[in-house]
C-alpha cells in the first residue's frame, strides 16, 4: 500500500504519454462496448421475456407461411392458456416511405392481456376496442412523428394490397428494453378489407384467397404459469402436425434467440474485430510502458541498489501498467454505460435499434479486459526492469 503514491507519481510524471495511452484505450473500449452491447442488450431483453410465460406459434415453414386465424380461438381455449392474440406483420409504408417501425395486426380484446407489460390507460383501451380503425402506438413513435391521441395515421400497404386509415386511440407504456415504436391495430380491420378485395376480384381459389386474408401471422400465447409452457408448445404442435399448416411453437425467449441467431456471420465478424482491437491495445499500451521504462533505467538501478528486491520492482511496474490501462478502460466502459443510459440513440438509427444500452455484464467484462491488457502489456517491461543489471543501469547516462 505504501508504494501506491510512488506508482501514482510515476504514472503522472509524463502526463502527455499517460494521457494519450489512457485516451487510446478509452476510445477503443468505448467502441468495444458499442459493438458487443448491440447483441448483448438484445439478448438481455430477450431473456427478460421469460418471466411473462409466453409462447409463440408460427408456421413450421417460416414467417411467410399461413396461420389460419381460427387457430387463435382454438389455442386460447386450451388448458393452461390465459390469453392469445394474432400478431401479423403489416409492413406498410408511412407517408409513402418505407419505414423502420413495426406495425402489427392484433386482437384488440386480448393483446394487452397477452403482452401484459405493455400498459394502456383504461379509457384509451376502451376507445381502442370500440373503434375498428383504432390503433395504439408506442411512446417513442408518438414523440418522433409528433402524434397525439385522436390523430389519423394512414399507412400504405406493401406486403398487402390494401391501405389502412388508422386513428390513434391510445399510447402504450412499456419497460425500457422493449420496442416502444410499434403500431398495434385491429386484425379484423385488415382482414375485412382483404376479404372484400378477394370477393371483388373473382375469388379464384376458395380455400386460400390470393389476398392473404384469414392469416394470423404468428400467435402470441400467454400461459398461466412457467411450468405449463413446455407442455403447451408440444400440445399445440401435435394438434396441427397433420394439417395443411403445421406449426412450430416455442417460448418467446427461444423465438427471439432464433431471430438473433439469424444474424449469423455478423456476430462472428464483430467478435473478431473486437479481438483485433484488444490485441492492438496490447501493442499500444505495451509500447507506452516500454518507453516509460527505458527512460527510467537509472532509477530502477537506484531502487535495486538501495535494496528493493526483484519481486517488488516487478510489482511496481506492473501496478503502473494496470493502473494506466484500467483508468482508460474505466473511462471507456463506464463512460459508455453512463452515456447510453442518459442519451437515447434509437431515433438516430432510424428505428434500426428500438433501444440501446450497455448491460452491466458487458461493461464489467470490458473493464476486466482492460485490466488484462494493462497486466499483459506490463509483463515484458516489468520483467526487463526486474532483471536489469544494477551496474549497467547506474552507469548509463540517459
Amino acid at each position, binding site marked *: 500500500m505504501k508504494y501506491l503514491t510512488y506508482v501514482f507519481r510515476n504514472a503522472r510524471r509524463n502526463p*502527455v*504519454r499517460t494521457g*494519450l*495511452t489512457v*485516451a*487510446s484505450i478509452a*476510445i*477503443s473500449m*468505448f*467502441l468495444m462496448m*458499442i*459493438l458487443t452491447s448491440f447483441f448483448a442488450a438484445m439478448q438481455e431483453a430477450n431473456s427478460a421475456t421469460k418471466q411473462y410465460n409466453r409462447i409463440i406459434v408460427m408456421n*413450421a*415453414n*417460416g*414467417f*411467410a*407461411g399461413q396461420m389460419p386465424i381460427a387457430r387463435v380461438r382454438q389455442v386460447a381455449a386450451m388448458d393452461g392458456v390465459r390469453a392469445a392474440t394474432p400478431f401479423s406483420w403489416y*409492413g406498410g*409504408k408511412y407517408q409513402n416511405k*418505407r419505414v423502420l417501425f413495426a406495425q402489427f395486426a392484433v386482437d384488440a380484446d386480448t393483446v394487452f392481456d397477452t403482452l401484459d407489460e405493455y400498459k394502456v390507460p383504461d379509457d384509451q383501451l376502451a376507445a381502442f376496442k370500440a373503434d375498428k380503425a383504432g390503433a395504439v402506438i408506442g411512446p417513442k413513435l408518438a414523440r418522433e412523428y409528433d402524434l397525439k391521441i385522436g390523430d389519423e395515421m394512414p399507412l*400504405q*400497404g*406493401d*406486403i398487402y*394490397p390494401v391501405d389502412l386509415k388508422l386513428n390513434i386511440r391510445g399510447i402504450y407504456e412499456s419497460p425500457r428494453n422493449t420496442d416502444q415504436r410499434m403500431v398495434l391495430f385491429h386484425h379484423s380491420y385488415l382482414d375485412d378489407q382483404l376479404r372484400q378485395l378477394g370477393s371483388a376480384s373473382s375469388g*379464384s*381459389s376458395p380455400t*386460400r384467397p*390470393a389476398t392473404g386474408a384469414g392469416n394470423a401471422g404468428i400467435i402470441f400465447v400467454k400461459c398461466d404459469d412457467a411450468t405449463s409452457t413446455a407442455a403447451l408448445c408440444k400440445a399445440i404442435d401435435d394438434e396441427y402436425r397433420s394439417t*395443411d399448416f*403445421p406449426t*412450430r411453437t416455442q417460448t418467446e425467449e427461444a423465438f427471439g434467440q*432464433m431471430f438473433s*441467431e*439469424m*444474424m*449469423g*456471420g*455478423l456476430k*462472428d*465478424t464483430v467478435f*473478431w*474485430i473486437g479481438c*483485433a*482491437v484488444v*490485441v*492492438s*491495445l496490447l*501493442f*499500444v499500451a*505495451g*509500447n*507506452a510502458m*516500454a*518507453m516509460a521504462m527505458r527512460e527510467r533505467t537509472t532509477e530502477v538501478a537506484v531502487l535495486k541498489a538501495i535494496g528493493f528486491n526483484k519481486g517488488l520492482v516487478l510489482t511496481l511496474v506492473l501496478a503502473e501498467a494496470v493502473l494506466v490501462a484500467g483508468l482508460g478502460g474505466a473511462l471507456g466502459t463506464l463512460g459508455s454505460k453512463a452515456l447510453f443510459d442518459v442519451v437515447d440513440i434509437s431515433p438516430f*438509427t432510424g428505428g*434500426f435499434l428500438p433501444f440501446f444500452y450497455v448491460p452491466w455484464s458487458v461493461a464489467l467484462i470490458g473493464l476486466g479486459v482492460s485490466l488484462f491488457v494493462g497486466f499483459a502489456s506490463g509483463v515484458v517491461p516489468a520483467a526487463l526492469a526486474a532483471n536489469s543489471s544494477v551496474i549497467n543501469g547506474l552507469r548509463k*547516462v*540517459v
Partner: protein
Amino acid sequence: MIPFKYNVRNLRVRWKTTLMTVLGTALLVASSCILFGLVEGLEHSLKVSGDPLDLIVLRKGATAETTGGFESKKADELMTLGGILRDADGPVAAKELLNIAVAERNSGTYNNLIIRGVEPASRKLRPDFKIVAGRDFEPGKGECIVPPSAARMYKGARIGGQLAFGEKEKYLVVGLFTAGGSQAESEVWADLKDVERNTGREGSVSCAQLRASGPAEFDQLRKEIEDGAQFLLDAHPESRYFESQADTSTFFKAAGTLIAILLTFGAMFAAANTMFSAVKSRTREIGTMRALGFSRGDVLMSFLGESVLLSLLGGGLGLLATIPMSLISIETMNTSTFASVNINFRFGPLVMGVALIMTLVMGVFGGMLPALRAVRMEVVSALREL
C-alpha cells in the same frame, strides 16, 4: 531540407518501438477495413445485378420482390408485350415466385432462405449465370440448385442432399450456381411450377423480370405496364430497384464509419505517443540540426514526415492484412427482407480509401504536436540537454 534518410534510419534504430506502433495501428486499420470491405461487397452485389434495360414488375405499391405478389394471368399478358427483347428461345422475360422458408444451418441455428421459382429465361436475366458443379435442375422433378455459400452453410444443401422446408416442400439439390456476385447468390433456385405446387400458390407470381430490346422500348414498356388498365403494376428499372434494397448496406456503412472514426483516434494517440518519445530522446540532435542552420520549417517537416512514414507502414500492413479476407464471406440476415444474405468481402476503392484516410489522419495529426514541440525548442537549451 533534412534528408528523408534521417527519418528512415531513426525508425530503424528504434525498431522495437516502431514495430509495436506499426503492429498496433495495422490492426486498427485492418479492423475498420473489414467492415468497409463488406459494404463494398454488398454494394457490388446490388450494382452488378442487371442490365440497364432490365425491368422488375411488382404489384403497385409494393417495394420488394418478397412482398410484391400479383396474379399470374397479368404476368402472362406481360410476356406478350412488344418491345421485350427476343432471342432464339422466345422473349427474355420470366415469371418468378418467391417463398421464404426457415432452414437449419449446419451449426444448428436457423435463418430464412429465399426459394425462387424461376423460368428458363431467368438465367439470362442474371449476369454470368453459371453452373459451377453438378448440373442445372430439370423442371417438374422437384430439383433445385443452390449457390456455393448456401451449400457450405445449410443442412442438406450439398449436391445430392435434400432441402426440406416442411412436409410438402422438398427439393433435391442437383447443382451449384454462381451469378456474377449478384443478389441471386443468396437464393435457392427451383422450377417455377414446382414452387407453385409446393407452396399452394398457383395463380400468383411474386414478380416478373424482363429485358427491353432498346432504350426507346424500355420507356414504352414502363409506360404501358404502369398505365395500362389491364395491368396497373409498377415496373422498376432494375438498377433503381436494387438501390432501394440497400438498407442493410446503409447500416453497415454507418457502423463501419463509426468504427473507423473511433479507431482512427485510437491509432492517432498511439502514433503521437511514439513520436513524442522520439522527439524527447533526440532533443540534442534537434538542437544540433538547428545550430547547423536547418530552419524551424525543416525540422517540422522532418518530424511530420517521420510520423507519416510510421503510419504509412502501419496502414499499409493493415491493408495487406485484409487481402486474404477476400476469400471470406459472411452470411447474415437482410434487415429489409428478413432473409439470408451472403456478403462477400471485396477489396476495392472504398477499402483503400478508408485505409489511406485513416493513415494520413493519424500520421499528420498524431505527428503534429510532437513536431511542434521539437520546433519550439530553444537551440541553446536543447544542446545543453544530456
